[in-house]
């Protein structure tokens, strides 16, 4: 019991420290203010969009939340563990009765808390902005389309925030294995490729989409299908296209997506711990 409490105390202390460290980073505010400016200016494009203004406003708002959240994850998260190793500040931590697992988890939760707080703040701003547009009648939104802030849009925002659960885990993993620059590149690539995972599934179908299918084709198709389930699939969290049209997803699907985020990030964090455990500091 004591061991468990000590573990939690250590993790919380490291996470809080990481969060404070991230809050002091100026780049965070640059991204945050820029995101707010983009969301606020969405209506300018909405004005010239011939009857589709609310869709354009929603598209820009959701895309900004995702994109700037990712930038914060990459730029703040890439150097997270590596900087500690480079500056040797990690010694002061692990010299104490703090395990490397606690260090990894604490750093992860600290960064995740930071990214989620910033994205949630953007989401709140976006929601209020939309509500003001609808209330003032500037959005051209009818009641049929779901009022000020339709529920699917809230779900889409939750899932945007939730994709960082996976992305930050990947950032921490790369940060504990390579240099900050490579880590940033790898995290960004993981983000882009994670959103294209659906194509692996698609290719697995395309391989079989011909007249004579060989055993090799079937093997390739199966391999691609397995690969689809193994790579980080960030497209799973992307329901923006449907949400802007006020189309909801089922509770089952929503729960599966949340479970996917938690389970996949746990696997990545365990892998990060395994790598860091073997590393000579």
């Amino acid at each position, binding site marked *: 019991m004591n061991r468990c409490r000590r573990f939690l105390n250590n993790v919380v202390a490291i996470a809080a420290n990481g969060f404070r460290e991230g809050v002091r980073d100026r780049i965070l505010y640059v991204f945050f203010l820029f995101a707010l400016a983009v969301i606020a200016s969405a209506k300018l*494009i909405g004005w*010239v*969009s*011939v*009857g*589709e203004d609310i*869709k*354009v406003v*929603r*598209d*820009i708002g*959701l*895309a900004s939340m*995702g*994109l700037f959240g990712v930038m914060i994850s990459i730029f703040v998260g890439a150097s997270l563990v590596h900087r500690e190793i480079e500056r040797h500040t990690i010694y002061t931590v692990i010299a104490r009765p703090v395990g490397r697992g606690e260090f990894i988890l604490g750093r992860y939760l600290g960064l995740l808390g930071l990214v989620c707080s910033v994205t949630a703040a953007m989401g709140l701003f976006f929601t209020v902005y939309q509500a003001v547009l609808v209330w003032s009648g500037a959005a051209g939104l009818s009641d*049929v389309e779901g009022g000020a802030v339709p529920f699917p849009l809230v779900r889409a925002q939750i899932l945007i925030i939730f994709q960082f659960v996976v992305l930050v885990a990947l950032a921490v993993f790369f940060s504990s294995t390579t240099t900050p620059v490579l880590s940033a590149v790898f995290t960004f690539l993981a*983000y*882009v490729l994670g*959103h*294209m995972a*659906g*194509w692996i*599934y*698609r290719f697995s*179908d395309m391989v079989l989409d011909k007249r004579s299918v060989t055993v090799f084709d079937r093997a390739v198709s199966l391999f691609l299908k397995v690969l689809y*389930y*193994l790579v980080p*699939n*960030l*497209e*799973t969290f*992307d329901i*923006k*296209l*449907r949400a*802007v*049209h006020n*189309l909801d*997803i*089922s509770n*089952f*699907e929503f729960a*599966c*997506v949340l*479970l*996917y985020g938690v*389970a*996949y990030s*746990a*696997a990545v964090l*365990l*892998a990060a*711990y*395994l790598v860091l455990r073997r590393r000579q500091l």
Partner: protein
Amino acid sequence: MKKLLLPAAALACLAAAVAAQVGVVSSRGMLGIANPIYRKHADQVSRAEYVTSFGMYLPKGDFAFAASAFLGGLRADAYWLKAAQYVSKSFEDPALKTRFLGDLYIAMIRIDPWWSSAAVTASNAVTGVTNDNEQAVEILDRAIRVRPDDWRLWYARMAVYLFWPGHKSDAVRSALIGASRPGASRALLDAANQLALEDGHYELAVRVARRRIKQYGLDSALGRIAWRDYLEHYSRYLEHLLAKDLEAYRQKHGNFPASLDGLVADGILKDLPPEPYGLGWIYDPASGAVLSRGLGTLEGARMHFILSFCVTRYYRRHGIPPASIQAALDDVKFTAKDIEPVRYFGNPPSLVPHPVLGDWKYDPATGRIELGPGMDIPHIFRRADELRERLLSGGKPL
């Protein structure tokens, strides 16, 4: 053993993630909206091509999606804005403009298959470009597959079928389905009613009219109009059925019965259906023609309105009333838009008698066409309202 614990835990987490992912794919697959699966279908309607002559570039095939992986909505919006600009842009070749717009709209729905407005506009553009109604319906059907509850898609589908010769029944069906969708425009149901009637689907017209009454409520203003339409359609439907029964009688006996009661006496009908307006049937034993007096009165009043209009126009043009009604008709040229006049009098027009009164009473000195008491439109509408009120107060209309 301890060494293997952590890798095993990592693998267990991965297995849980895979299981959750399977759940997501099966859920989206069941709804037919899994992004990769849907896009495979969406690709089949793709006509997006490189258009270089205007410096405009549309990515082809899979590249469009790959390039817009997580910003698909924004990319589709950019195309929408581009299309809005090109709508007002003048092209030397108008066909190229519409083709270009068609490509843009199709690219939009490939990226965002849930965007109904883009699908509707794409179908309009496709019919405008190539008159390819099949492709327009295909685009709409794919959009309907992912958004079956969007009445605007059904409305657009009805419009495509409406201008596609020989597909009026499909137009009616689309209108009926669309009308049952949440928030559907009333125009859909009214259009379905009119189309069914024009296409000779009398029974369907009656059913749609009943549905309109149910939807609007008999005591509402719209319900009042629907009730009038119902009486008209029902009369026409009964006329149609009686004509069929009379033909069956003639085939059996070699001649038409002396009266409509002959149909009951012969066992073809159990009872003679009451005329919906309560004004009785007009029957000619020589020709076997049967007519609802109420409907005949209404049709006659409408014909009277058109004829009076033609006479007035003749008077304005020549300064004197026409010598006969036919002279007034000869002086006009009906166009395709004059649906009702052409339906009654043909094109070129020739005078037909009043359905109930027979020959028209025309005074060449004054240019007036006499109709007689109780034969005008307000009178027959008052009769319909009386029946409605009787129904509303709990009684039978007849």
